[in-house]
């Protein structure tokens, strides 16, 4: 029992990390249909900037805020300098731009910061919480809570606000969105800023758990992407659930089967889910008719 509980906690910890990254994909995807492969770099920036701002003397909360703001600015710059000038380009071209951006940001981070691994102290200390013989770190609770908060925020944004619907409208039919008076450029800018901020926020929350360095982005993006797809791309519910589930699969496989093939097992589960639900768990089927 305590063993199972420990696997569960492990899975939730890892899952929260994936979920946070996955949630970051949602807004840009919903606004443009593009999976932003630079999303992982936002997470990296969130962590790294906090580390360096902290080292420069800012207290952690302030450093984190600065990191989130700076990363949001990077997101806006990415949109203004790279995505917007390529407006009208095929989606694959936009994806390559985001891959290029991710390489660029990584290259810049390695120059501006360094190539070392960094971390900063957990928000509420390193004393684990004991539950029925299993333990979980308080920072994991922060990450899970953070992921949940972001999920709720996004869900409200997309279902309850007109701006959220304008974001959806922009990706669904950009031309029509302009015709109804939506400033699609602004929507894109906003989306990049929000996605980047969510990414940086994730970075702040998970760095005490996973540590960070200039090159953590890609690995995180990959897992976040897989989690988002498992849940159904573009749906905050899917990103949250998909990320957590992916973490749980991995931990359970590592615990009960083989730690060597835990990622393989996770992907097999994703394949199986997609086999029966080609749009992921919560993805909606496209309703276009012929």
């Amino acid at each position: 029992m305590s063993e199972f509980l420990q696997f569960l906690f492990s899975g939730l910890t890892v899952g929260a990390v994936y979920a946070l990254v996955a949630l970051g994909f949602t807004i840009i995807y919903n606004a443009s249909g593009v999976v932003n492969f630079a999303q992982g770099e936002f997470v990296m920036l969130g962590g790294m900037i906090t580390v360096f701002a902290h080292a420069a003397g800012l207290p952690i909360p302030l450093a984190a805020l600065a990191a989130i703001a700076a990363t949001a600015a990077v997101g806006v710059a990415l949109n203004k300098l790279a995505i917007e000038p390529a407006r009208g380009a095929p989606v694959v071209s936009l994806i390559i731009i985001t891959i290029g951006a991710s390489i660029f940001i990584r290259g810049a981070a390695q120059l501006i910061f360094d190539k070392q691994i960094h971390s900063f102290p957990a928000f509420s200390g390193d004393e684990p919480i004991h539950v029925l013989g299993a333990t979980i770190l308080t920072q994991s609770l922060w990450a899970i809570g953070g992921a949940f908060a972001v999920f709720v925020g996004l869900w409200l944004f997309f279902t309850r606000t007109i701006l959220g619907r304008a974001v959806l409208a922009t990706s669904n039919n950009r031309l029509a969105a302009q015709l109804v008076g939506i400033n699609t450029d602004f929507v894109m800018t906003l989306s990049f800023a929000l996605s980047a901020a969510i990414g940086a926020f994730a970075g702040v929350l998970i760095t005490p758990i996973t540590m960070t360095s200039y090159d953590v982005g890609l690995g995180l993006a990959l897992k976040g992407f897989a989690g988002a797809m498992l849940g159904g791309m573009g749906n905050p519910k899917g990103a949250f659930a998909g990320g957590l589930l992916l973490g749980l699969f991995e931990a359970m496989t590592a615990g009960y089967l083989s730690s060597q093939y835990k990622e393989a097992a996770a992907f097999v589960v994703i394949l199986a889910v997609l086999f029966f639900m080609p749009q992921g768990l919560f993805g909606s089927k496209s309703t276009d008719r012929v």
Partner: protein
Amino acid sequence: MLTVEGLRSRYGRIEVLHGLDLQVDSGEIVTVVGANGAGKTTLLRCLSGVQPVSAGKITFRGEALTTVPAYKRLSRGLAQSPEGRQIFTNLSVEENLRLGAFLYSDDRVQKDMDDAFAMFPILREKRNLAAGGLSGGQQQMLAMARALMGRPSCLLLDEPSMGLAPIIVQQIFDVVSGLKALGVTVLLVEQNAFGALKIADRGYVMETGTITMQGAAAELIADPRIREAYLGI
């Protein structure tokens, strides 16, 4: 109200509008007829700003419109029901309508929506369905209703009767006539030239990117050239 002078537009290297002149006065219904590929849709796209203009001038209510970005034109009073309907297929019918009134958040939005539902009761029935699941004609109704939600002072309609049942076609033309009474100006592109000319004040005939004929609607209906080429009589 709406003046177009020497309008030219191109897709890539191919120019499809070769210097159009056209004018719509306030409160008028003006129709444009022409064969497939004449450039009617392109003209409307230029007017709503989603198609680049390579030369010429568009003036709307005395202000230059040519360089105003598309999304700002609705707030100036210009709404379009575009060709191919261009609804938000992934959003519900109601959300489509709500987005039609994206610029507004007052009480009138609800009232306008009720009006739209009254005009096309089927849309009320389907209000929670993703718009992509509507039948072709229902989508056409939605496109029209959504344009009306934007409270236009000038409405650009690209083949609004396409794919609609005869009984609804009649209704659409009635609605357009009714708009006139509300002071809304209408520029109507229609393949159902007969129906369009019947409710229009004036009409233009377009052939391969230029205006070849224009005049009062009644005259055009009577013109044998038009009757032969567009009305099939």
